[in-house]
């Protein structure tokens, strides 16, 4: 990424420049199109939902009001936030231990841990859905928060371990010893020297893990059944409108906006780190 900016002056023809500019505009429009479309649907009054227009003629907040009046969506939102947050915290803590050991310690199992993480990254979740469904029913974990947190934590560990290992490798760990020589206690050295250096990596891993848990639909659809633990993707997918055969388009669009906009803001605010996090694992891998 660094120096990837094409800062070296290069004689480019007008046509060449035009080509790249048009490409940029096309990409931006295409990337944002479905978001704009969902936003537009969520703001259309119920009567206009089927007008086949991209932009709304009139703007109304009725769908937003209705999803928050129904108990289903607020419950799902709370489940999503809680489950994704707890999964993120647990996954990142476990991954921090593992990544520290992989980067800092010489032991024979390092390869095994990274290999196991890699094979789980390729693992098809559907292969464990059935067994987990049956186990969770017997253990009383079906339709509970821990019932989703456990699979999310596990399936995000590879991502977290790889991202954190890549970041931890860049940390000049000797600074810790230097601080100790200067009279700092081990805890002070950790708190004032190492922790600030490690924080960006931990934060990046946390965002990536959160997005995974926030996004999942398969586990949520299979391992939950009520408002007790059903997360937003499953709730939206199983939304029932007034009529059995018609999707409640407006409510779905409004609920989608509510769960999309905050995540997009976080992503836009930390785009550099997310790009670094996603690419670093690949380069170092």
């Amino acid at each position, binding site marked *: 990424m660094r120096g*990837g900016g094409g800062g070296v002056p290069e004689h480019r023809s007008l046509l060449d420049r035009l080509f790249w500019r048009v490409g940029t505009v096309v990409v931006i429009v295409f990337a944002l199109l479905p978001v704009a479309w*969902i936003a537009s649907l969520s703001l259309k009054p119920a009567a206009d939902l089927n007008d086949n227009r991209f932009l709304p003629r009139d703007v109304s907040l009725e769908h937003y009001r209705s999803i928050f009046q129904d108990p289903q969506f607020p419950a799902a939102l709370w489940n999503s936030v809680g489950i994704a947050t707890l999964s993120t915290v647990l996954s990142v803590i476990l991954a921090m231990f593992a990544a520290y050991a992989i980067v800092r310690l010489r032991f024979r199992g390092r390869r095994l841990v990274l*290999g196991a993480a890699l094979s789980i990254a*390729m693992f098809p979740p559907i292969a464990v*859905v*059935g067994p987990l469904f049956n186990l969770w029913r017997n253990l009383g974990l079906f339709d509970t928060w821990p019932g989703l947190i456990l699979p999310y934590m596990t399936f995000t560990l590879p991502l977290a371990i790889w991202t954190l290992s890549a970041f931890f490798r860049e940390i000049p760990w000797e600074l810790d010893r230097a601080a100790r020589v200067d009279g700092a206690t081990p805890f002070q050295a950790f708190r004032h020297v190492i922790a600030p250096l490690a924080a960006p990596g931990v934060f990046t891993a946390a965002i990536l893990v959160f997005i995974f848990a926030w996004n999942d639909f*398969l586990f949520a659809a299979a391992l939950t059944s009520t408002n007790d633990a059903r997360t937003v993707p499953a709730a939206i997918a199983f939304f029932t409108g007034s009529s059995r055969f018609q999707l409640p388009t407006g409510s779905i669009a409004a609920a989608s906006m509510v769960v999309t906009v905050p995540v997009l803001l976080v992503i836009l605010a930390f785009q550099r780190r997310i790009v670094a996090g996603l690419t670093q694992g690949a380069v*170092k891998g």
Partner: protein
Amino acid sequence: MSRLVSRLPGLWHRLGRSAEERLGWLLCAPAVLAMLLVTAYPILYALWLSLFRYDLRFPDRRTFVGLDNYASVLTSGVWWESVLNTLIITLGSVSVELILGMGLALLMHRAVFARRTLRASVLVPYGIITVVAALAWKFAFDPVTGFINPLVGVDHAWLSHRWSAFLVLILTEIWKTTPFMALLLMAGLTLVPKDVLDAARVDGASGPQRFFRITLPLMKPAILVALLFRTLDAFRIFDTVFIQTRGAQNTESVSVVGYNALITRLNLGLGSAVSVLIFVCVILIALLFIKGFGTRMSRPEEAR
């Protein structure tokens, strides 16, 4: 993997040899245990369940049937059609994503115009919940609500016909995951030494020549890693198919078949056989990539 497994006895022997070794294992233990408990154990359990006739609606009638479930799955048209459907979606989306992703990676790599906006918008599809993206495209193509039909000037129920449904499914996949592909490829682009490209330019190599003769060969490992990850990811496609067609019009993917057997019909025996077969397919695809292309998948230690 097999190489790693064969080293296990040596590992145990060395356990407890040094404090550093023990600390290393201690720190990795929670993560490794979690991964074993939630993936290795269930897959073995699935293997066990797949040998029984076991329907949760009639749990008392659980009987050992050996490989009968595999025989039923492998002789059923539904399974093979879903394999074909999954391959259509996988090949359709991954091949287009590779080309678009490469273009996008080049664009991000050398963009001089709206650089920040470009990178930010590319992350938008990545950050959106797949279910939401699938619904957005479904509504867009819907003849009653959507804007696509008037835009293109046709009157077509896209998701009610098999091939146009595939088109929508693949388009949704491409929209959602091209950014990820592009980011992986961009990481490969940054590894191409700039002085080599500059030297080639000085020697009079044209842009396409520099790309095909220098950049592309040097990026081969990054391309293969990106392809492997996306192929395996596309092969387990579930969310998009479930939301957009629920498998209607013969668009069922293997994961949807598994889900329907396990969760919708509560047939744990048959569903587990499907799960195990999907797992085997994924291993075969991974082996095909690793052996077939001779990719050096991961040597993280050597990057130090």
